[in-house]
């Protein structure tokens, strides 16, 4: 082949790559596609029920409620068809509900953990029990969702909670030297009250910067190089596009809850010390009796493993398990290894306790 024939061919390849790059960078992927219905709403929060796909006699009778963090969309749990934790659990016969906190507005700047746990979660759980006809239920909390579910499980141990699953749960802040966030938000450097007085809520851009700045080269450079290197591979492009759609969907965190996260947890470790007060009531982890599975990501830079381990020694649960997975904060549930490792283990653990 002559050089003149190869050159246009190379140009067309390059043109195709730029077209793919443009599409991936400027459009949103279709995520959260598992069929669902909205069964309850309060303020910005919504409760979704996923349409069962297995016959009633094959379903687990104990419903599962998923609670995600406050500052990101819960769509990461239902990323894309064939790569969705929710789709996986529904296909395994679980009656799955998801509590979506929604995007807080200025009017929500005073919302605290107190409100999320005692006003929103209790009501959503009441609805789950009513709709499922079950007096018992399972809770899965991820990241800050794990803080909320732990507080709930400790404050309402008689509400019918049978199983509690905590994913990358930031609960123990006793080793601040191992936590980059703790260093950044130390009161010597970070004036949380000034930030919240200025913005009301904690801006999504600042939260996003904080999460990305923990690994700046990976997030700001290597991530895009990975895409560039794989622009000819539709599988990688599709996966990257879906993840980028989720990552770039940023929104603020309610100011009251953010202040609690920084002051009560990061600076004073009040939950582990038994000093955290929710509407005047001390949160006593010793009251948590549900079966407990805590999933730890060994390569987690946002919630290092040391933050999730101490809970086991504090609770009254007799049925406890720690499951360690290689991977990062999000990767263990949404990465390529999730379907081989994390999801099957959660399914197996929960199925045995949902009879």
């Amino acid at each position: 082949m002559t050089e003149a024939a190869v050159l246009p061919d190379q140009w067309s390849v390059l043109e195709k790559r730029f077209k793919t790059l443009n599409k991936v960078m400027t459009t949103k992927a279709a995520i959260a596609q598992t069929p669902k219905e909205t069964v309850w709403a309060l303020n910005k929060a919504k409760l979704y029920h996923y349409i069962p796909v297995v016959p009633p006699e094959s379903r687990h009778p104990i419903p599962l409620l998923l609670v995600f963090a406050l500052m990101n969309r819960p769509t990461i749990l239902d990323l894309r068809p064939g790569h969705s934790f929710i789709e996986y659990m529904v296909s395994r016969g679980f009656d799955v509900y998801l509590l979506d906190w929604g995007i807080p507005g200025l009017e929500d700047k005073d919302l605290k953990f107190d409100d999320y746990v005692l006003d929103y979660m209790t009501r959503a759980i009441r609805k789950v029990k009513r709709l499922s006809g079950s007096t018992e239920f399972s809770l899965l909390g991820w990241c800050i969702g794990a803080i909320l579910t732990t507080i709930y499980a400790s404050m309402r141990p008689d509400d019918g909670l049978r199983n509690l699953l905590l994913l990358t749960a930031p609960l123990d802040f006793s080793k601040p030297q191992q936590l980059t966030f703790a260093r950044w938000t130390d009161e010597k450097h970070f004036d949380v009250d000034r930030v919240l007085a200025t913005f009301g809520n904690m801006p999504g851009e600042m939260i996003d910067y904080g999460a990305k700045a923990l690994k700046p080269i990976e997030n700001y450079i290597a991530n895009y190089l990975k895409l560039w290197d794989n622009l000819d591979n539709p599988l990688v492009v599709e996966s990257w596009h879906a993840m980028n759609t989720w990552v770039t969907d940023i929104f603020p965190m309610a100011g009251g809850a953010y202040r609690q996260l920084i002051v009560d947890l990061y600076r004073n470790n009040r939950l582990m010390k038994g000093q955290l007060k929710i509407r005047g009531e001390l949160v006593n982890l010793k009251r948590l009796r549900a079966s407990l599975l805590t999933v730890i990501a060994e390569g987690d830079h946002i919630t290092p493993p040391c933050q999730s381990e101490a809970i086991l020694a504090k609770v009254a649960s007799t049925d406890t398990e720690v499951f360690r997975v290689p991977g990062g904060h999000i990767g263990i549930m949404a990465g390529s290894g999730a379907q081989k490792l994390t999801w099957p283990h959660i399914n197996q653990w929960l199925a045995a306790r949902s009879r």
Partner: protein
Amino acid sequence: MAAENQNAKPADPFDALRGIRDSYIDAMSKVMMKAVNSEEYAQATGVMLNSALIASAPFREALDKAMAAALQHSSMPSRQEVAALAGRFTNVEMRLDDMEAKLDRIIELCMVARPVPVSAVPEPRAAAKAKVKRAAVAKASPRQNRGRKKG
């Protein structure tokens, strides 16, 4: 041999460069992670953030005042007023939710105290599920059910 040669991926002259690039990225990543995890970085970002907030405060206050005056002049509600209204809506929603829960409880208690014909009340999901389960059991073991009916 010729076929093998045809199927083999052509050598990419950029592979070596890519390798060097990746090694450099790995090394830089370690350096940067160490840097952002330092006390100096925390202090520097804290100073920058505080300075930006302090410097912008007078402008923000002036803008807020001007906006509030403009909205008042145009008989429009301010952001704070809309936020207060939204808070009141949420309170109403909570009360409705509580009332719904109380009604559910009352219906449950009424049904326990005085069973009404199934056709008279909408079937709750739990009852529907149980009905489906009973039907499935009956289908699976007709002999056992016949015995029950007789008994």
